[in-house]
């Protein structure tokens, strides 16, 4: 056996006992460590809200859907509105992660994890609402095609069934995307954890070591998941829109619905990312990673999609007038000047008028302003779905069958609970896993250093 070179032996003997850690690891993992009062207060609020909603839901399950405010002819109310709202919120994560990945928009790296987390929990929240809406929760499996003694299968020509497949596929792919992206960062947490946390991270990181082979398979997986998630994200809200557009209800039967819903979903989703990430950045001191530049880029997206929404609102009114179809014209007149005029004008002002302020750079880069604006945009997006669903259903073809829908207390409690449910999961995630994709941020940092030193090409 040849003797080992003296220099290699010397390196082995002089190897640093504890090599320095990356500052990025330290800063981002700090979110999961320590104690933060605002986090605890928010969590207490969220858990209380969830408890309240479960109480309301238990009462509704016991008493029946009669307590849900449904009144002829409106049998799709707050639950369906909130379902569409949360599905829409879930669109920004996939857009940021998948579509911006395919376009090689590197600025996504600091916000993609937060947006993906939001997507997963938003879709999880949304998926509850069709079940709540059906009243008898335990019958939810009727939605799925399963062999049964009546030999009866589901109706594949119904958009409601398309929705079941679309939402479940979206939830599954979002979760996969989220977990695949998270694995390298869990390995970072594993290497720095002790005790039971280390044991948990070791199992969840699934043997990740960052070998060339692993990164190659990982990159290819992210690329393919992005490739298939991009048409998926566009399909999901299109399919949700067809729940309405495939019917002949005035105000619903419109070909513009699919792009209109997709644009609205991206619009609302980005607004929610800002609403969530502004306090996270402030409380956990993540300003060096989530910069004003990121918020400005998101503000540009919001401005762009707001214009699409504005165009869609205008096109709907124009087509209603130009069609000459009286029920259609009446439906839209009722939207603006009927009993639900407040919701319609809230929708227009919050979603179209107010976002135009983002043309001004000073406001686009003003974080408190963005936070407040995005809060109102989310409110406006909820009202948009309220307008679409309630005004159309309550003012159909026969005036004698018109009715008035007012959300009940139970519905409003479940609606509030949905925000708490979403927040609760998001807050718990913050304390368990990195909220910024550490390895992706490091990729940019190391590349920049390498290029500065003349390496790389």
């Amino acid at each position, binding site marked *: *056996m*040849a003797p*080992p*070179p003296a*220099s*290699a032996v010397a*390196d082995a003997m002089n*190897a640093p006992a504890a*090599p320095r850690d*990356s500052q*990025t*690891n330290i800063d981002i993992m700090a979110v999961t460590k320590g104690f933060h009062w605002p986090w605890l207060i928010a969590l207490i609020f969220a858990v209380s809200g969830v408890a309240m909603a479960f109480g309301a839901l238990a009462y509704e399950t016991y008493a029946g859907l009669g307590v849900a405010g449904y009144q002829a002819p409106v049998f799709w109310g707050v639950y369906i509105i909130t379902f569409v709202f949360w599905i829409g919120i879930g669109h920004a994560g996939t857009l940021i992660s998948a579509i911006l990945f395919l376009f090689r928009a590197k600025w996504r790296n600091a916000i993609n994890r937060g947006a993906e987390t939001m997507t997963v929990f938003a879709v999880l929240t949304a998926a509850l609402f069709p079940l709540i809406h059906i009243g008898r929760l335990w019958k939810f499996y009727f939605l799925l*095609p399963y062999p049964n003694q009546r*030999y*009866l*299968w*589901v*109706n*594949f*020509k119904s958009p409601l069934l*398309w929705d079941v*497949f*679309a939402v479940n*596929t979206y939830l*599954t792919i979002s979760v996969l995307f989220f977990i*695949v992206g998270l694995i*390298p960062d869990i390995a*970072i947490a594993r*290497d720095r954890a002790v005790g039971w946390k280390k044991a948990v991270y*070791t*199992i969840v990181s*699934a*043997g990740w*070591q*960052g*070998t*060339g*082979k*692993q*990164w*190659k*398979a*990982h*990159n*290819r*997986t992210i690329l*393919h*998941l992005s490739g*298939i998630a991009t*048409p998926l994200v566009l*399909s999901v809200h299109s*399919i949700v829109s067809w729940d309405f557009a495939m019917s002949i209800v005035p105000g619903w039967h419109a070909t513009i619905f699919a792009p209109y819903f997709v644009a609205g979903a991206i619009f609302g989703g980005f607004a929610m990312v800002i609403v969530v990430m502004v306090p996270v950045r402030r409380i956990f001191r993540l300003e060096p990673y989530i910069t004003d530049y990121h918020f400005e880029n998101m503000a540009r997206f919001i401005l762009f999609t707001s214009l699409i929404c504005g165009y869609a609102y205008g096109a709907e009114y124009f087509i209603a007038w130009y069609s000459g179809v009286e029920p259609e014209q009446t439906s839209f007149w009722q939207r603006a000047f009927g009993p639900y005029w407040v919701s319609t004008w809230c929708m227009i002002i919050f979603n179209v008028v107010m976002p135009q302020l983002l043309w001004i750079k000073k406001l686009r880069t003003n974080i408190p302003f963005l936070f407040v604006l995005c809060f109102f945009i989310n409110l406006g997006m909820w009202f948009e779905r309220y307008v679409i669903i309630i005004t159309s259903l309550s003012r159909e073809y026969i005036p004698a069958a018109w009715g008035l829908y007012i959300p009940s207390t139970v519905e409003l409690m479940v609606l509030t609970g949905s925000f708490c449910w979403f927040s609760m999961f998001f807050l718990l995630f913050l304390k368990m896993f990195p909220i910024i994709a550490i*390895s992706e941020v490091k*990729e940019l940092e*190391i590349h920049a*250093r*390498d290029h500065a030193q003349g*390496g*790389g*090409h």
Partner: protein
Amino acid sequence: MATLVSVYDMPSDVSTVVRKLKSRGFEDLTTYSPAPFEEIELAEDPKPSAVRLFTLIGGLAGVVTGFGIQIWMSMDWPIKIAGKNIAAIPPMWIIGFELTILFGGLLTVLGLAIFAGLYPRPLDEHYSPRFSAEEFGVVVRCEDRDVAEVESLMRGHNAKEVTLAASH
């Protein structure tokens, strides 16, 4: 056989040293990096990952399953709906598409688990937490007689440490 572990700061050094080592016939090597770097992946193995085959197979399986279950279930309980054929194809594109995506995604992740060896297991002997900080590692297994050559190659490309981890 000997095992040499070298540590680097920059991905460009790693890709260069890996390319040189491979050109000299040292194929039994492993790299560790804290983030994905295309240049290292290409230097180590320029062939595209076989994960893509899993996506393709999953997608094809999804589209066949999607149309298959819809046609079969529609025929199994034939009800005429909205004047359309019992097994009308146009509305089936929706669920056919969704299952293509679903199966494609599931099999892609299965491919990742297989090719990246993602299952709970002990870490490599030469893996170090510094490779999940900001440093890069190249581990080469070579004959004892080649140790000096490999070491000089590593040091010649800015290795900040070279350690002889095993020699037997």
